[in-house]
C-alpha cells in the first residue's frame, strides 16, 4: 500500500530557528568574527579550503561559522558555493620551486642547500595543554634573522642530477578535471592527484598509515616538505600574455621511495607527490604516500591487494562530501522503502511458520 504524505514544514522551520540560536550560543558572549576564525583557527580554514577545493580564506571562515565548527559540513558549503561560480580558466601550473617558503625541511639530507627551516610548527612541542592560552594575553614578537635571498631549490633536484631518482614525467598532456567530468577509471596520475588533493584528510591519512604498516609497503622518506606562497598566473586572452592574479599558500611533500629497478629501469629512487592548499602538512605527506602506493602498476611492482594500491577503492571513497551525502541520506525518511521491507519480512515469517507447522504435522 502506497500512502503519499506531506508535512513537517513547521517542524523544519522551527528546527532551523533553534539551530541558529544554538549556533550563536550565549548572547552575553561576543559573536565570533570571520577575521577571528581566519586568523586564529587558520588550520581549520586551511583544511576547509583544501578539501572544499577553493582557495578563499574569508569564505572558508564563513563556512566554519555557519557549520558550527563541523569541518565536513563547512567543506560541503564551500563545494556547493563553488558550483555557482563561472570558471574564468585554468592557471599556468604554479612554480613550487619559486615558493616563498616559511617552512622547508628534508628528512633525507641534513645539509640540503637552503637549510632546514622549521617555520611555525607543532613539531618538538611537548603536546601539553597550555593553560596560559585560556587567558587572553599578548604574545611576544617572534625572533627574526636575516633572510636568505632567492628561491630554495627542490631537494629531489639534487638526486635527479645524478640520475639517482626517476625524472618527473612531462608529456604536456591536458589534465582531466573531476569537477567537469565524472570520475572514470583507470585514472592517470594527474586525475588521482586531483582526487587526493580534495580527499578527506582522515581517509587519506588512514590509507597512508596502512602502507607504512605493510599494506602495499613502499617505504617512504620525506625528501622534502615545504610550505609557503606561490603566485598564480593565468593567460589573459584580451591581453595576449599571462598575469599574476594573486597568490596562494601551499604545502608540498615529495617522498623518496626505494625501487629495485626493472627490466627497463636501473635501480633508482622513485617519487610520491603531495600538494595541498594552505598549511596542511599531515594531508600533503599522506597524499604523497598514497600517490606512490597507487603507482605500483606503472613501476612494475606487485599488486599485494592492499587497499592503498586499489585505485578504484581509493578514488571512489576519498571524497568526504560524496561519502557523507550517501551515508547521511539513510537517516532521511525511507518510510515507503521500509514499509515494503516490513511486508516482505512478515511474508517470509508467515511462510516459515507454515513450513514448520507442516513439518510438525508430518512427524
Amino acid at each position, binding site marked *: 500500500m502506497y500512502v503519499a504524505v506531506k508535512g513537517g514544514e513547521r517542524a523544519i522551520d522551527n528546527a532551523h530557528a533553534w539551530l541558529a540560536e544554538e549556533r550563536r550560543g550565549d548572547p552575553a558572549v561576543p559573536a565570533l568574527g570571520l577575521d577571528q576564525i581566519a586568523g586564529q583557527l587558520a588550520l581549520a580554514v586551511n583544511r576547509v579550503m583544501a578539501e572544499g577545493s*577553493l582557495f578563499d580564506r574569508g569564505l572558508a571562515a564563513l563556512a566554519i561559522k555557519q557549520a558550527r565548527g563541523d569541518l565536513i559540513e563547512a567543506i560541503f558549503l564551500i563545494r556547493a558555493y563553488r558550483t555557482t561560480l563561472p570558471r574564468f580558466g585554468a592557471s599556468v601550473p604554479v612554480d613550487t620551486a619559486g615558493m616563498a617558503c616559511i617552512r622547508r625541511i628534508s628528512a633525507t639530507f641534513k645539509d640540503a642547500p637552503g*637549510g632546514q627551516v622549521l617555520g611555525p610548527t607543532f613539531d618538538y612541542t611537548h603536546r601539553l595543554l597550555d593553560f596560559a592560552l585560556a587567558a587572553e594575553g599578548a604574545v611576544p614578537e617572534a625572533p627574526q634573522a636575516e633572510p636568505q635571498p632567492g628561491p630554495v631549490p627542490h631537494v629531489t633536484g639534487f638526486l635527479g642530477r645524478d640520475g639517482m631518482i626517476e625524472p618527473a*614525467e612531462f608529456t604536456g598532456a591536458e589534465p582531466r578535471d573531476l569537477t567537469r567530468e565524472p570520475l572514470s577509471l583507470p585514472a592517470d596520475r594527474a586525475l588521482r*592527484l586531483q582526487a587526493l588533493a*580534495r580527499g578527506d584528510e582522515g581517509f587519506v591519512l588512514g590509507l597512508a598509515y596502512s602502507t607504512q604498516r605493510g599494506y602495499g609497503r613502499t617505504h617512504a622518506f620525506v625528501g622534502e616538505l615545504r610550505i609557503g606562497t606561490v603566485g598564480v598566473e593565468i593567460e589573459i586572452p584580451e591581453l595576449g600574455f599571462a598575469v599574476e*592574479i*594573486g597568490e596562494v599558500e601551499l604545502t608540498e611533500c615529495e617522498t623518496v621511495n626505494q625501487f629495485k629497478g626493472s627490466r627497463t629501469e636501473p635501480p633508482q629512487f622513485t617519487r610520491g607527490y603531495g600538494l595541498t592548499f594552505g598549511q596542511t602538512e599531515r594531508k600533503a605527506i599522506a597524499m604523497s604516500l598514497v600517490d606512490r602506493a597507487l603507482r605500483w602498476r606503472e613501476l612494475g611492482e606487485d599488486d599485494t591487494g592492499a587497499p592503498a594500491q586499489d585505485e578504484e577503492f581509493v578514488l571512489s571513497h576519498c571524497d568526504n562530501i560524496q561519502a557523507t551525502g550517501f551515508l547521511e541520506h539513510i537517516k532521511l525518511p525511507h518510510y515507503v522503502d521500509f514499509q515494503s521491507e516490513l511486508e516482505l519480512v512478515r511474508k517470509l515469517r508467515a511462510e516459515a511458520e507454515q513450513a514448520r507447522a507442516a513439518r510438525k504435522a508430518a512427524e
Partner: protein
Amino acid sequence: MSTAETVATADRRAWMGLLARAEPARLAALLGADLPEHVLLRAPEIGAVMVRGRVGGAGDAFNLGEMTVTRCSLRLASGVVGHAYVQGRDRDHARQAALVDALMQTGRSTEIEARVLAPLAAEETARRSARAARAAATKVEFFTMVRGED
C-alpha cells in the same frame, strides 16, 4: 615583439600582479574617492580559476583546486582600456585595479606610480620580509657532537 614592447609588457604584468595581490581597502585608500570618468566594458564579475600544479613539482599539470577571482574591464574617456583580474570577491577591488591599469597607460602614469603602486610595492615587500625574517630565525644550525670514525 620589439624590446620596447617587451619592457612595456613586463611593466604591465608587474603592476597588474601587484594590484591583484593588494589589500582592497589599502588600494581604495591610496587611489582616493576622486576617480576618473570611465565606461565599464565588463562589469566586475566574480568567478573562479582552476589552480594547477605539476606532478612531482616539475612534471605534467594536474588540477589542484580553484581560487576565487574577480575581473573587470573599463574604458577611460580618452579611450584607454584597463583590465583587472584580482584575487577574491571584491568588486570594487577589481574596478579600482582596472582603473589603475588604464591610468598607467596615460600621461598620469608617473603620478599613479608614485601615489599608488610604489606604496603598495613597499608594503608588500615589508610584509614578505617580515615573514622571511621569522622563517630565517627558525633555520636549524647543526653542531657535530661526536664523530664515530675517530
